[in-house]
């Protein structure tokens, strides 16, 4: 009987979940300086963290709705653009999440090293 290897599909799904967990931290990390949606996506992609536009743009609005980002419209060298940056609450959350991420990373490194 021909068996289909289930790994690629499972891998894609689980990897997506793994990335979903860090998307917010990644986005917050780039917003200490004001960025608009497209430039933020480019900046993240340049650092090896490509995020689909359909995920990123709504996420920015949701984070703003939660009071973690502040935004303003600017007209510079092109069409009007909405620039986002961390609010005071966003700064605090970013610091806390960064600390959590580092702890988690250390724990995971320990676990994965033992598993070798």
């Amino acid at each position, binding site marked *: 009987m021909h068996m289909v290897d289930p790994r690629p599909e499972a891998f894609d799904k689980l990897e997506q979940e793994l990335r979903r967990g860090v998307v917010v931290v990644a986005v917050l990390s780039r917003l200490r300086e004001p960025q608009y*949606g497209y430039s933020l996506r480019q900046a993240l992609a340049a650092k090896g963290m490509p995020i689909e*536009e*359909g995920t990123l*743009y709504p*996420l920015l609005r*949701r984070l703003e709705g939660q009071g973690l980002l502040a935004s303003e419209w600017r007209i510079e060298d092109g069409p009007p*653009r909405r620039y986002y940056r961390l609010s005071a609450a966003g700064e605090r959350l970013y610091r806390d999440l960064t600390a959590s991420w580092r702890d988690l990373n250390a724990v995971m490194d320990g676990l994965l090293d033992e598993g070798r």
Partner: protein
Amino acid sequence: MDPRAIIESYVDAVIRHLPRKQRNDVGFELRSLLNEELDGTASDAGRPADEAMVLALLSGFGRPQDVADRYRPAGFTIIRPADAPGFARVALLGLGLQWALTLPWIFADPEIDWLSRLPVWWLSWGLGAFWWPGFLVVLTMIAAWIGHRWPRNASWTPPRAMDRDHVNRPLLALGMTAWTAGAAVLIALPWLSTWAPWAPAPVVEAMAFDDSFLRTKAPWLPPVWAGHYLFYGVLLVQGRWTPRMRQIDTGFSAAIYALLIWFMASGPVFRVGSTDDAAKSILAAVLLISLIPFVARAIRARSRIRPPKALAASNGA
């Protein structure tokens, strides 16, 4: 087709699913971002933006409804995944029960033309039965909203009735007292005119047992009752159920049910027809109600945690 017009149409489709006050702001930003994405893609490809390019971009962005969902903050769950199978069962059972009851009834109605029966049923009871799932959904929505508005933060506590083998002695004693009184009244009923001479003659007449019932069937009941009563006396002293005690209880109950069904199915119990009908209706109701604990016990037994099959097999081997 003009790529910008496609983006415009896509943005319209997205914001249509958003709250009115959000639409303009999100629409303006989304259009600007998609145009920039398109310019970026065209620049990377080294050719002007075209229809295929914009459709590929929008396809990656997602269906407008899905994109609109991502813009909305997380809402509250109306039916939790754990409750969904139970909800579906109750909804379908209620629907099926109504149909099962009303369909034969309408087909038995001689006043409705045979060919019209199904359409008449469907346009009345058939469609009308959908009130039940709708009613359940509304109740669930209200419960979900209350749960969302005032979340329960209290930690889990074990239910009081966790020890199912424990016998509630005061309750059992109360039940036995009520039972004694009821049985005494029924056993003394044939001599009603003697111990209640003040009772009006029509009442005495209405309460008179059928002679054949008294002679051939009634004598079977007191010994079974007495045995069951004694059994409960023992249970009251012991204060705990054991598997054997449950088997004996089930045996006595089954004997009583068999007698009651026999009484109902074979001939009159009372001389007067109206009393007989009323008594049999009450007996049927008592039978149904007394079956509830057995059904509950069977459901509990089914849902009891058992060792997995593989483990049971290896233990048995």
